[in-house]
């Protein structure tokens, strides 16, 4: 193994949504910062939407086992009704996310106090508010001020247009008197910070060739690198090492040539995602930590939250032009977000209206659901289906349960021999009741919008890039992995700055909140530099 003699001030593992934000923020300190990323940069010209086969590119699938790049690790989700998706590279999962950019609500941080379920976070929405604002400025967020379903926010770029599909569904919400609002979207609808405006290519979920979508390779990273951060790509960290005093000494990583190195650091920050962070901790065993690093609570990898989800598709008589515009960003509804005990479950969900697919995905989906027959009826059925469907996704809060977890899968190692992961996840009783309610309401609003047919509610087999809770923060070392500002209870120079920290999931996409949290953790480090390692 090559051991570099240089000990850097800060070593960040992971260059995704959180790692980019924390790296950028810490540049204020003039410390020497190195970030190790197992994947690579994605060139804009490599994105699928630059080619005619844009709907058939497994190398840009969100499913790591399908993508199967060198930097991906095996994820066994066979027993889970919700299938995790991600991306490994500079930008992390922001490369493939839909840029739907809601924040957790204030109530999400106090579910125990308000509703008697889950646990309260050790911090509040108010604590994160300035970091939400900074993050919105760095990412560039489009939206419309004045949403009565969410706390106010400023500085929004012009909203993404609803298009025919969005307006059609919005009228359905109006007919029922239900809340809706244009989605806040991490998309430059006008030129912003060197990024050109959105061209309405459609499938943000396979990456943005235009660079209008706020993936952190085009937002935080250029600025962080300009301010001195060293980003090393194709470097897969296998283990966090410890010194004799039980402090983090650095990390062992394998470079693109298969050569093993140890990078030493005074502070180590994990930002590898809700799967990657516990995977690395569980793989870092020692006499001091036989069950995984910083795992005296036994909670590393536990309390996995993926969001429970519903999916309903309405078929309309008229074309909806749904393939035009950012697929995941049209409108949302918070009508059923906050707890109402009369509904028979605690907490709630957001409705997100998804635009239509391209012809290949529409045909594949129609065939899979038995809506497109073989033979002479195929063409008529396709014309009736294509561009005439609107999809409503219900994103529901799943309550943390220790049985929902990530464990190491030694039988399926990655290309460098590090164990893959197994997803152990089930939907709880509260989630099942919530999903039933969401499916019924989605059907109701699609019919109110004019759908002539609505598909049965799908709750199993859905994909989620929302991976949270697997190294939760808290004040009690027996009930949490880190303290209230991301420092591991058991290793005082080891920090976590990603969605692993989440105590509850809320019912929204987590990227905005996890990035605000990363900025919050970085700020705590900056404010406490002279007492960072004190008890």
């Amino acid at each position, binding site marked *: 193994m090559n051991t570099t003699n240089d000990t850097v001030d800060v070593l960040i593992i992971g260059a995704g949504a959180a790692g980019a934000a924390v790296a950028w923020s810490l540049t204020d300190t003039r410390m020497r910062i190195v970030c190790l990323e197992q994947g690579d940069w994605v060139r804009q010209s490599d994105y699928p939407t630059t080619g*005619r086969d844009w709907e058939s590119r497994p190398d840009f699938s969100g499913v790591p086992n399908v993508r199967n790049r060198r930097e991906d690790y095996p994820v066994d989700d066979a027993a889970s009704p919700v299938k995790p998706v991600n991306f490994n590279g500079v930008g992390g999962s922001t490369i493939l996310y839909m840029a739907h950019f809601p924040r957790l609500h204030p*109530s999400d941080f106090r579910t125990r106090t308000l509703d008697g379920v889950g646990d309260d976070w050790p911090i509040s929405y108010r604590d994160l508010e300035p970091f939400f604002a900074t993050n919105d400025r760095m990412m560039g967020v489009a939206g419309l001020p004045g949403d*009565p379903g969410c706390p106010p926010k400023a500085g929004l770029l012009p909203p993404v247009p609803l298009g025919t599909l969005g307006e059609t569904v919005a009228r359905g919400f109006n007919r029922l008197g239900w809340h809706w609002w244009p989605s806040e979207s991490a998309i430059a609808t006008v030129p912003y910070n060197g990024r050109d405006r959105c061209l309405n290519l459609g499938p943000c979920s396979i990456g943005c060739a235009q660079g209008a979508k706020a993936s952190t390779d085009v937002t935080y990273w250029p600025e962080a690198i300009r301010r001195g951060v060293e980003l090393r790509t194709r470097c897969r960290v296998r283990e966090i090492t410890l010194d004799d005093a039980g402090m983090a000494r650095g990390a062992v990583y394998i470079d693109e040539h298969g050569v093993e190195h140890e990078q030493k650091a005074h502070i180590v920050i994990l930002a590898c995602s809700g799967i990657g962070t516990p995977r690395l901790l569980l793989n870092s065993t020692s006499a001091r930590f036989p069950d995984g690093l910083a795992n005296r609570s036994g909670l590393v990898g536990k309390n996995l939250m993926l969001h429970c989800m519903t999916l309903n598709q309405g078929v309309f008589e008229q074309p909806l032009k749904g393939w035009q515009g950012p697929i995941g960003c049209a409108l949302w509804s918070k009508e059923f977000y906050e707890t109402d005990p009369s509904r028979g479950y605690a907490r709630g969900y957001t409705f997100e209206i998804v635009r239509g697919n391209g012809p290949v995905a529409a*045909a*594949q989906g129609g065939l899979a659901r038995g809506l497109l027959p073989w033979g002479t009826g195929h063409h008529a059925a396709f014309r009736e289906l294509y561009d005439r469907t609107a999809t409503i996704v219900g994103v529901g809060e799943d309550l943390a349960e220790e049985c929902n977890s990530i464990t190491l899968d030694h039988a399926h190692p990655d290309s460098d021999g590090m164990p893959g992961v197994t997803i152990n996840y089930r939907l709880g009783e509260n989630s099942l009741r919530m999903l039933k309610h969401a499916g019924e309401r989605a059907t109701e609003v699609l019919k109110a919008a004019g759908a002539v047919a609505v598909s049965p509610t799908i709750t199993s087999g859905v994909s989620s890039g929302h991976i949270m809770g697997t190294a939760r923060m808290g004040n009690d070392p027996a009930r949490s992995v880190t303290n209230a500002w991301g420092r591991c209870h058991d290793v005082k120079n080891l920090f976590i700055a990603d969605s692993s920290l989440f105590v509850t999931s809320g019912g929204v996409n987590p990227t905005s909140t996890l990035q605000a949290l990363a900025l919050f953790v970085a700020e705590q480090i900056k404010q406490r530099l002279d007492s960072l390692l004190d008890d």
Partner: protein
Amino acid sequence: MTQTIATDRTLGERQSTILSTLAACMIPPQDGLPSASDPRIVKEVLALLAGHAEVVNNGLERLHGLATQVGDSAAETLPAEMLISLVATLRTECPAFVTLFESTVAACYYRDDRVLRALGLPDRAPFPVGNDVAPTDWSLLEPVRARTPFYRTV
């Protein structure tokens, strides 16, 4: 096609014939739309399926077994209606094959220039032209704007 799976494996002649026949059954020609067995389309289909030889072999073997049972003849000689009904059975018995086949045919068919033009869709990649989306009439939001904030403050 950057993602046509590169493989040195090829399908046998009989396999190619039956797969082409199945493609024709799945999407026949109609009103200016080609069949999925059109030579340009089916060539891509076969190239992609060649990368999944085990699934394809299993599926075709079972299909031939079913064909022998119902018609005492080779699958590729059966009438289209009968072949389609056999695929319905195959869907239960060999779901991996049917899913792969349908998905592959759909991928190759619905990116063909002639198909896209006949459907009135752009025969180009989304980037760099993109799409124009009409500005939204935000007066639609008036009833929502009239609501008082209803998120819970803490």
